[in-house]
């Protein structure tokens, strides 16, 4: 089975909801692990990398959670396949660049994904919609406990799990959440929030992780320190910070509507206008416009649109997903034309935004997380 037949359609995945999915698009917990006695992938010779892959891949495939999983060596995936996986946040750009000696095992629900021989021998991650860090940690913890019975990890009692990069040493954990923060961007508070979050020892990154732009007002917040703190403590610390960011975003939206309603309504109206009527639109512009449309949905301006539609468009308008629907190779310009065709078609029956936010002034409910 190829990856396209395997992956569930974005129309399905984009409609999975979790707690606070208005602002928290997804939660993820990743663990880095390495085999004992084998050089790290970046330094190992090709033969050694292949040997590691041959040890790890069958062990991962045998786990109950990976029943009916998709498992493939990276050299059997085309650049387009890999780009699609990147656009779905299932693999990193770094892993997409790998070939022979690297692999991928992915479960049917897209909730568990193991990268083999990326920066470390094993990068396993649990993904969940909305804010569900604790659940994601529980899932990947259990998965890891099963895997450790089959392969022997490089572990030091004092330094913990040994990783290729010292930044991952110890727990090897990266806990992260993908946040949609148009309110903080529009109210120009985002830089303040980012530097405050940085000061707490957490990283804020763009849509595709390290060194990428925050397209579509989407930001990833994750822990940086992995040594000297237990996994549940790290999860807890991130949860606390996220609860605050959610609150700030809600407040920013509330005060924007109160103080600058025209600015907000104008952005949303323009976003709808271009998305539903343009004949040439780039992927970057699309993402930024969809962000405002998503905000419009959250504010009740599009009563007949569900957030899932916007999130689906977020995925299927990206270059590789768009290319996949056409057999001939498209240039960037052709893609921009076809993208706008698709958007016009999908938004054909969507009425233009209301003139005032629904429920505004009658006490629109804030999606404020409860203190734990």
């Amino acid at each position: 089975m190829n990856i396209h037949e395997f992956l569930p359609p974005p129309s399905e995945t984009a409609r999975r909801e979790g707690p606070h999915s208005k602002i928290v698009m997804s939660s993820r917990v990743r663990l880095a692990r390495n085999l004992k006695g084998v050089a790290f992938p970046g330094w190992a010779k090709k033969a050694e990398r292949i040997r590691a892959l041959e040890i790890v891949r069958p062990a991962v495939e045998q786990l109950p959670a990976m029943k009916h999983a998709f498992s493939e060596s990276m050299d059997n995936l085309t650049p387009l396949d890999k780009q699609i996986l990147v656009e779905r946040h299932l693999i990193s750009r770094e892993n997409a660049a790998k070939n022979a000696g690297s692999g991928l095992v992915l479960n049917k629900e897209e909730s568990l994904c193991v990268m083999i021989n990326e920066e470390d021998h094993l990068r396993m991650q649990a993904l969940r919609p909305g804010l569900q860090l604790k659940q994601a940690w529980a899932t990947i913890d259990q998965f890891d406990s099963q895997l450790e019975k089959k392969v022997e990890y490089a572990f030091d009692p004092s330094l913990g799990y040994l990783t290729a990069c010292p930044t991952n040493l110890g727990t090897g954990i990266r806990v992260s959440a993908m946040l949609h923060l148009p309110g903080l961007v529009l109210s120009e508070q985002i830089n303040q929030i980012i530097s405050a979050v940085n000061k707490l020892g957490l990283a804020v990154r763009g849509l595709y992780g390290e060194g990428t732009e925050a397209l579509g007002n989407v930001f990833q917040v994750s822990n940086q320190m992995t040594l000297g703190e237990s996994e549940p403590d790290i999860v807890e610390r991130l949860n606390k910070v996220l609860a605050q960011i959610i609150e700030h975003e809600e407040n920013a939206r509330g005060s924007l509507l109160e103080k600058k309603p025209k600015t907000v309504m104008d952005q949303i109206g323009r976003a709808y206008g271009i998305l539903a009527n343009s004949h040439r639109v780039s992927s970057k512009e699309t993402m930024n416009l969809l962000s405002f449309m998503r905000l419009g949905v959250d504010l009740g301006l599009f009563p007949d649109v569900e957030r899932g539609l916007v999130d689906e468009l977020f995925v299927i308008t990206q270059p590789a997903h768009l290319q996949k629907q056409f057999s001939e190779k498209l240039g960037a310009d052709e893609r921009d034309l076809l993208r706008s065709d698709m958007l016009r078609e999908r938004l054909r029956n969507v009425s233009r935004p209301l003139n005032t936010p629904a429920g505004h002034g009658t006490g629109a409910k804030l999606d404020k997380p409860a203190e734990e």
Partner: protein
Amino acid sequence: MLCCVCKEKEATVHLTQIAGDKMQKVDLCEDCAKQKGVNDPAGFSLADLLLGLGASQEMEQATGGAEVKCPACGFTQADFKKAGRLGCAQCYQTFAEGLEQLLKSMHKGTRHRGKVPAALRESQDLAERLKTLQKKLEKAVTDENFEQAAQCRDEIKETKEKIAAIALT
């Protein structure tokens, strides 16, 4: 003050990160700051910068400039400077001295707190038990409590067998 990356131009960008009770400082010139993405708040984090910067310097200082090579994988300091990654698990021992400072500046602590593989947890427990039993045996012998000594000896034998069994699997 000179820029700590290029060491040529005057540093005009000063960054401070406070995590817990630790403070980290970096001083950069305008060009290096731009290059490192300091102006792009979404893509920048101080740890990434410190990692590329401080790591190899600290390792050099720690070894007094002598070239250290990992006996297990042949990885050298120069390789670390280039890649920012280590060669194998053994490298953590080989470069332990230089890494210590780096780990201190990067993490909350330098000792792992958190998950331990179950097999290791078990053998750690057994090693602990063995120590206790050996002490108990010594005491029993000094006290001429031979009945207890015999019991301890049996238990020690049993524990050692369990340790050996784990080592085999």
